[in-house]
């Protein structure tokens, strides 16, 4: 029981990352009709916004301490971050909560990156075949990766969660089980709640605002909305920015879970495409649902018990291929995915 609950938690946690990326991918596809292979790179850029904020907060005044020696036997340099020098305790608080500072910073930065991407590049590809869109965004992803590698190196850079949110909680006790059976990292729970809020926010935005209504109308029938004299292009551009921000925020919040490095976007890219396809191309609820579903299935597949049982019937290492296997089965049995419409992108 406790083992199952743990894997459910792991699943929804993984799933929330998948869902966030897939949501952004589907937004772009649904509004602009563009297959964006650079979406994983946006996730990665978000994570590196957090790294950058951390580095900026850590810019330090260097003083020489003659008492202590460094590894070469020279007087040691003592670093005091300027923010603590200027703001005192508030500075320490900023450094401590740098992940949340990054969230605040990442929203405008990622929206801007998204808008620049759309206006500068994607715009010119609306009327080109999907293959061209895939290729040019794939190229963009390579370029973005290499820029990040040139600036930050290849080694993962750890980002810690605020002290208050580090460590783990006894989740079992919360749901009325015995003590010490289901212990779960606090930050992962924060990640889950954060993504629920974000997903809810995007849905509410689309459903309850006039802007969102127009966008939804545009997704359904771009031409008619355009004929009504509404500047749908501008709204779509903004939606691209929103999608970029969703991916970026997913990246920022992910940094305490997995220290970011430059190829992380590509790792998520293939997965998120699988999620989108399983959920159904162009369906926002489908993307979210599939994200959670795949996360949970993947978690269960990696339980030793299940792994061994499946290996016994002749399918070893099921945890390594389960995601792809599901993608293949869904595509063959129900090509429109869980909640998609038939016929989308079948050219």
């Amino acid at each position: 029981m406790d083992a199952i609950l743990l894997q459910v938690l792991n699943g929804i946690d993984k799933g929330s990352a998948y869902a966030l990326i897939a949501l952004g991918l589907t937004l772009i596809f649904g509004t602009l009709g563009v297959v964006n292979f650079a979406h994983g790179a946006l996730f990665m850029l978000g994570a590196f916004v957090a790294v950058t904020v951390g580095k900026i907060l850590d810019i330090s005044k260097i003083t020489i301490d003659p008492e202590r020696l460094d590894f070469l036997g020279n007087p040691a340099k003592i670093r005091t971050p300027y923010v603590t020098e200027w703001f005192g305790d508030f500075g320490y608080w900023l450094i401590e909560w740098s992940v949340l500072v990054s969230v605040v910073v990442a929203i405008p930065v990622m929206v801007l990156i998204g808008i620049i991407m759309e206006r500068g590049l994607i715009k010119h590809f609306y009327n080109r075949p999907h293959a061209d869109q895939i290729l040019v965004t794939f190229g963009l992803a390579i370029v973005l990766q290499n820029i990040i590698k040139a600036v930050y190196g290849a080694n993962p850079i750890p980002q810690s969660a605020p002290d208050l949110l580090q460590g783990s909680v006894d989740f079992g006790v919360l749901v009325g089980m015995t003590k010490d059976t289901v212990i779960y990292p606090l930050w992962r729970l924060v990640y889950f709640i954060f993504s629920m809020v974000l997903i809810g926010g995007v849905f509410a935005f689309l459903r309850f605002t006039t802007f969102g209504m127009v966008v939804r109308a545009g997704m359904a029938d771009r031409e008619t909305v355009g004929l009504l004299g509404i500047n749908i292009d501008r709204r779509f551009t903004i939606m691209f920015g929103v999608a970029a921000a969703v991916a970026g925020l997913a990246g920022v919040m992910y940094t305490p879970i997995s220290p970011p490095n430059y190829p992380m976007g590509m790792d998520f890219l293939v997965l998120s495409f699988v999620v989108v396809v399983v959920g159904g191309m162009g369906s926002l609820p489908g993307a979210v649902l599939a994200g959670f579903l795949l996360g949970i299935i993947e978690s269960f597949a990696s339980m030793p018990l299940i792994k061994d049982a499946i290996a016994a019937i002749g399918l070893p290492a099921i945890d390594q291929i389960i995601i792809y296997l599901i993608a293949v089965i869904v595509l063959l049995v129900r090509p429109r995915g869980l909640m998609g419409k038939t016929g989308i992108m079948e050219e």
Partner: protein
Amino acid sequence: MTLMRDRTLLIIFTLFVLAAPLIFAPTGAAYPDLLQRFAIYGIFAIGFNILFGLTGYLSFGHAAFLGVGSYAAVWMFKLLSMNILPALLLSVLIAGLFSLVVGYISLRRSGIYFSILTLALAQMSYVLAYSVLTPLTNGETGLQLRLDDPRILDAAGPEGFLPSTNLFGLEMREVFWSPTVFGYDLQFNWGYYVSAVMLILSFWISIRIFRSPFGLMLRAIKTNQTRLKYTGVSTRPYTLAAFVISGMFAGLAGGLLASMDPLAGAERMQWTVGGEVVLMVVLGGMGTLIGPVLGAVFIKYFENIFSKINDSVLQGWFAFMPGWLDNFFVTIVSPFVGKGWGLTLGALFMIVVIFLPGGLVDGAKRIGRKITGADRRAAKVESK
């Protein structure tokens, strides 16, 4: 008319390929290993172009066939003989069978769904080859020859040495002639010429397919599949045939890679390698005859030559300048070469996709047109 043009193209191509050790000498790429790679990845790209260029089906999974071909070839070297002929035959056969299975499954869908199906199947092959299939693939370290392999057809060689791959006695790694021409030390190598002959053959087959009714049908599928279906044509057999043909080309390329250098690693099956062949075809010009080969040469050149330009080489280049200017240029250029070669390649790739939808071939045509004025006919010597 087309026939004549094709014949001219084939002859020019053949001459170029045969003279490659001389032609590439000034570029620093004229050493056997890289020339072999040019030819082999050229074959891979030519095959991929038959699927992608003609039918428009974008597969991200062709790396799996390349890998399977390599494994098959190395197993032949281990068990049967170091002669590359049986190895190549088995590579093509196994890759053909494997692509038949993969193609049969994934061609049930089209568009992006097809791409993701091939991607998923290839990734599955890769992770399995890396881990659980290790008895068959030797996993991380790659399948390689050992001193105690049976090699039942071969006579025992000298004790303690691995035999080398050969074609009826012609050793693949042997440089049979190394003259000095115009100050360049040239290396003529059997391995390259075997690959070159295969490349020319592949090129010829590709021309034949492009001009055949079958090729026409494939193009019709790309243009408007729905209309074809309404007229009662079942397109699946045609696309499946194209898929298997391209898979066999990939298998041949994989087998040749193993013949030149008898090692087969699992990374060869990763989807990024499958992505690389897409880049090759698009860079060169998809749907053209010569484009894929150009793209393959371009990318392999970058990977092997640009990645070796380090700061001290750059300092050598700019040494004629005054010190400060020298350092300035080294600082400017160095992020784009050496460890930054990926950045340059990605950027160039984007530029080609954005500005030259027809790839390098398209670019060459445009330049040609500029030079000869607006005379389109003269510029249209190219494949189409």
